[in-house]
Structures are given as C-alpha cells and as structure tokens.
C-alpha cells in the first residue's frame, strides 16, 4: 500500500496539467468549472467544441483500448487524468455518456459493425449520447420497464413508450433505450437494448423544469420511433444484462474527478465564510471541518475501490463500492446546506456572482444526488442485502 507517485506518474500528471493550462484558455476559458451536474445547460455548443479540442489532444476515452481509439491508460493514470482535468476546472463532459457508458457497453457487447459505426464518433467528440432507462412508474424499480418494442418485417425495431430523467436529450444525437421486446414478460426478463437517433419523427423531447428553474432532465416520448435492425446491442431478451454491465462502469475512476470538483466547491464555501465573517462561527467551523474530512474519506474510499480486490470480488460487491454512492450523495447534499448557511441572507438572492451562483445551484441540484441513480432508500437496501447479507425485501408475486 503506497500513496507516493512514481516518477512516470508525476510526469504524466504534469503533462495533463500543462495541456489543460494551454488549451482551457482563450475562448474556452469561460468554461472553467462549468457544465457539471446542476449546470449542464451551460454553453452546450462551446462544450461540444471543447470535446473536439480534447479529442485533438487525444484526451477523450483515455481508458479505452487502443484498438478502439483510446489510450489504454492504467487505472492509476486514469485517476491522475480525471484529477488534473477537474483541478484545472475542466468543464462537465458533454461526451461522458458516450465515453463512460455506451462506449464501454459496445466494446463489451457490441458487434464489430456497431463498434466501427459508433466508437470513432464518440472518440472524436462528433456524436453525443443520452440514456433512456428510467420510466415514470419505474423510478427505483428499474426493471419495471413498460416501454415496448417490436420488430418490423424489415428487421427494424419500433419503440413505444416513455422515458424520464434523460439528461441532455435535447443536446444529444443518439439515445440508448431499454424496452420490453417480449410482450407479457416481467421485470428484467424479455428486454432489448436499442440504439436510436434522437432526431426522428417518432421521438419527442420535453424538458422537466427543476426546482432551480433549469431543465437539464427531460422526458422522452417514443411513438413508433425507429431503431435500425443492426442497432440492437446483444440479443433480444438480453437487454438487462447489457444495461447492468453499463451501470457497473458508472462507479469508475471519474469519481476522482468529481471529488476535485467537490473540493473546488468547498473552497468557494471557505472563501465565502472568510469574506462574510462566518468563518468565526463555531458551528460553521465544525461543519467545514466535517466537510473536509468527508473529502479525505471519499478520496481514500475511491482509491480503495479501484485497487484490485484481495479475493477477486467484482467492484460492485466490494464494501467500499457499495457505500460510495450513499456516502458522497449525502455528503454533497449536506455541503449544499452548509454553503447556504454560510452565505446566509446573501444566498437567498438570485445572482450571477461567480462566487455565489455555483453554490446556489449546488444547493438545489444536490437534492437530486440522493435520488437519482438509486435513491438513499434503494442504496440502503442494497448495502444491507449485498454488504451484510440481510434478508431481501419481500416482493409481491407478479
């Protein structure tokens, strides 16, 4: 067990840092620290250009195999990449669903043709993806998919139904969808995993207005929307397997970058507290100390998660991985409240002040952190059942 970097690691760290200094400047400078969760609507076009800037520097899909256009970076190097990207204020990645979710799924489950068709566009920052999992009546109950699909005579697929909480659908080119291909099937059986272009008559996107006023989530309505015959990933009926493999990947190295952004937010809070005098309030001091401690916990927890397991357990079953989502989301929600309590009355007023506005957005958007991607309640069930071997929730027979 060691934290000291190798000389190669240090050189690599400096390489990214210096690339970021050079390129996240000029017209891209206004993207610094922008576009993360809660701010995804910021500068969409410029952020797409930024994706191409990254691609030109070979900084997209850095963990992918070289055969698919990636850099095949080691876990350690990916950690360094994400940390330095975020430390430099690198903007929220428009390409992250392509790079982090559908790309890896295609590499694992896709056909040679699918790989050839889609991966280069993702690597190049030319095509952007949205995900279609959740449905209005299947919030935490992800497997309760009502959206249907069926195959036409020409082999193409049609999709009918509704997805919800689809981020950036209006800024994306493609969507992947989990739909029921076997009528009458239940739960995670009988599902298909389909790829659809968003710009087609059978798809309508309606933004969902959030409490903060923004609308980075959408409802997506499918009314006979078409997926080409060759755009099913895996076999019909295997959709759940593809989707779950992909969720697993979500808990990856990018968490280290997320933590750097959290640290940036805490810095903003500390600066605000020093500015308005609340840095001398004992209760605020204690909460800031706790928030800092949480950052240390998250960093070490993520490093633990990413280390090879002693007993070969898969990532998702490692104890530190089971708790991670619950820990960070509740920590972040508390950070939002801390930010507002530090700002006091100043925080109540709508403003564009870059020292305040990001904290306000964080306060509101962090409400979603403990809800999306498995609510607190679902997380605690999973931890108790998988981590502690306690009895599963009774589920009424279908």
């Amino acid at each position: 067990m060691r934290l000291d970097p190798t000389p190669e690691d240090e050189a690599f760290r400096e390489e990214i840092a210096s690339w970021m200094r050079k390129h996240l400047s000029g017209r891209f400078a206004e993207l610094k620290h922008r576009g993360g969760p809660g701010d995804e609507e910021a500068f969409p076009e410029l952020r797409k250009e930024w994706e191409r800037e990254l691609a030109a520097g070979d900084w997209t899909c850095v963990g992918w195999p070289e055969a698919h256009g990636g850099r095949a970076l080691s876990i350690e190097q990916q950690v360094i990449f994400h940390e330095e990207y975020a430390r430099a204020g690198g903007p929220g990645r428009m390409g992250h669903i392509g790079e982090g979710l559908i790309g890896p799924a295609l590499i694992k489950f896709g056909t040679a043709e699918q790989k050839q068709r889609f991966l280069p566009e993702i690597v190049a920052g030319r095509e952007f993806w949205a995900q279609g999992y959740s449905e209005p009546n299947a919030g935490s109950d992800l497997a309760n998919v009502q959206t249907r699909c069926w195959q036409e005579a020409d082999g193409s697929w049609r999709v009918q139904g509704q997805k919800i909480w689809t981020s950036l659908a209006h800024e994306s080119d493609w969507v992947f969808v989990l739909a029921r291909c076997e009528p009458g099937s239940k739960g995670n059986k009988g599902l298909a995993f389909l790829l659809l272009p968003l710009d087609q008559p059978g798809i309508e996107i309606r933004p969902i207005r959030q409490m903060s006023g923004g609308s980075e989530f959408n409802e997506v309505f499918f009314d006979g929307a078409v997926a080409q015959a060759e755009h099913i990933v895996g076999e019909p009926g295997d959709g759940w397997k593809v989707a779950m493999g992909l969720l697993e990947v979500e808990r990856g190295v990018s968490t280290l970058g997320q933590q750097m952004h959290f640290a940036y937010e805490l810095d903003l809070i500390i600066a605000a507290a020093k500015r308005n005098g609340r840095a001398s309030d004992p209760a605020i001091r204690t909460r800031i100390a706790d928030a800092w401690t949480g950052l240390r916990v998250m960093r070490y927890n993520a490093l633990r998660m990413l280390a090879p397991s002693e007993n070969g357990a898969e990532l998702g079953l490692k104890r530190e991985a089971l708790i991670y989502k619950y820990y960070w989301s509740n920590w972040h929600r508390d950070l939002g409240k801390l930010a507002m309590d530090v700002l006091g009355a100043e925080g109540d007023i709508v403003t564009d002040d870059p020292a305040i506005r990001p904290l306000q957005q964080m306060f509101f958007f962090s409400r979603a952190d403990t809800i999306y991607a498995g609510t607190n309640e679902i997380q605690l069930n999973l931890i108790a059942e998988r981590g502690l071997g306690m009895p599963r929730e009774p589920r009424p027979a279908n």
Partner: protein
Amino acid sequence: MSFAFTEDQVLIRESAENFLGDASRSDAVRAAMETTLGYDESLWQRLAGELGWCATAIAEEYDGLGLGPVELVLIQEQAGRRLLCAPFFSTVCMAATAVQQLGGHVAQARFLPQIAAGELRMSLPMLGTSAQWDAAAAAVHAHPQGDDWVLDGGVALLPDAAGADWFLVCATLSAGGRGLFAVPAAAAGVKLTSRQTWDATRQFADVQLSGVHDAVRIDTADSLADGLPRCAALMRLYLAAEQLGAAQQCLDLTVEYAGGRKQFGRVIAGFQAVKHRCAEMMVKIEALRSAVYGAAALAVSEDGDSAALAMECAAIKALASDTFYSCAQEAIQLHGGVGFTWEYDPQLYFKRAQASSHWFGSADALRGAVADRLLG
C-alpha cells in the same frame, strides 16, 4: 391552567384553515409568485377587509379585536401551511407588533387602527440578533430639522415592500442614540429596489433614503430598548407558527404521495423505512406544535417576564427552522424524482425553509442566546 383552546380560538383556526385551503392553493401561490407585488391584491383585501384578520391581536382601544398571540399563532400556522402570499406577516405580525411594543401612544393611535382595518401595509426588516439591529441602525442616520427628522441611508431586505405604504426604520440619531421611524413609501427621497429571491413566496426589496423629510418618530423615551425583548419574541413566535404549518404540509404532502406511489408492486407508504421517516417528521412537528402553543400561552400569561419569553421564543424559532428544513428535505427525498421538479410543491416549501431559517437570526445564533442565559 388549561391547554385547551377556547371555542372562539377553534373557530378562528377553522376559519383560517377553510379560507386559505381554498384561496391559497398551490396554483394561487404560484400565480402570486410571478407578480411584481408578490401577492394577489384581492386576496389581501378579503382577509384584511371581510375577514378582519389584521385586527386580531390589536387592542380594542385601537379598534382591534383585543385578542392576542394565541389567535395570531393559529392564523399563522394556517398561513404557513398554505404559503400564503400576502403582506400579513410584515404588516400584522411584524409592524403592528413593533408599533405596539416599541412605539408611544401617539404612534399607536395613529397606525394601529389603520392596520386593524386592513387599510395600511407596513414593512420592516427581519432583524434577529442585536448585532443585526446595531448594523441596521448604523446604516441610517436621522437628524432633526425644525420639527421634522431628515433620514439618510439604506435599509436592506424589507419583506413585502413593493406594496407597503410605510416602512419602519431604525436609525442612529445625530445627537446619539437611536430612534424608530415610520417612513411613508411615497415620500420624496425614498427609492425601492426589489431583490429577486429563490423563495418567491415572500418577496423583498431594499430601500434607499435620501434626505427624506416625512419620517415620523414612533418611539418614546426608553420604549425602544424596553420593548425589544418582547417584540423580538413575538415576531419569532409568529414566524415559528408559520414554519410549523409549513412543516406540517410537507408531511401531509409526503404521506399522501407515498400512499399513492407504487414501487416494487407496493405503495411506498407501506415500506417501513418510509413509515419511520414520516413518523420522525411527525415527532418533530408535534414537538414544535406543543412548544409554539405553549409559548403563545406564556405570552398572554400574567407572568409577564419578557426575558423568559424572549429566551423561550428564541429557542422555539431555532427549533422551528430546523424542523421545517428537515421536513422539507424529507418531503423532497420521499417524493423521489418528482420531488425536485418545479411542478411538485415540495420545492416551494424547501426554498421557504431555507430562506426563513435565518429570518430573525439563525438557529445557531438563537441557541447561542439561549445558552448565554443558561450558562452566562
């Protein structure tokens, strides 16, 4: 000693509950939030005029109903539950209280009958700690000119200021000391700047005073210093009652939603974790309710120890802020995905919870004041 409400008190509560349950539903609140005034003028006219709510706690000698904190608390609880958009809190709970507790008889006779009649709207900033009073007083200077006072300075964050007829302003006197002044909103030299807030159910503006001549001084001798503990106590109590009602609505919305929403083939209200968290909300809310009712009863008791009342109301405002916030947070969480959408109501309560958490002092500051009394 009796902790039962009188029949009249029950009637007042039920009347407020029925009226606001109809007139201040979510759609009405959302419409009012979008207006420049921040509330629906006709709704205000009804409750100030027909229903006579403004007269509740004003003495009969000033054309009020001569009732008191208990009755006003019962109305406030319903107002909070429905996020009533109206200058009721600023005018009746704050300004009338300030005039009664801090003003001389002349000022009381001048303003209270008009407030009781629902004909006058008045606003003042929501100051909590004495440090905030000091800072507010330091920001406005008053100097005498003949029989008049001339006021210069700025007052930040006055609630419902857009429709107010008068502002109450604490100022530093050129001769030293401080005074409380009523300033007509229409006076020359008064400039209003509205401040857009995330919680739009209660709107605020800053006021700039530049050589304003028409201010009326309303305090006399030591009335400002003498009256402040009870004045601050009552304002906090009325706000706590509002927060209580709002917290209750967070729970009610949540229980209702959980009773209808199915996941994994069951209504989520049947999951023990959901039940227990709703039960914990109820524990906090009922504890707060007992404290609010008790403090209201203490405020009308003959005991009359304003320092004890101030301590108790400081504690209760802290409790109310924490309870409201945690219930609003839980309401969002237990609504799941829709909880943080604009369309569902929890967000309205959540924003109000955060904003109201520091009106009249943060929970930390108020607990500090309680500790000072207990521990020196």
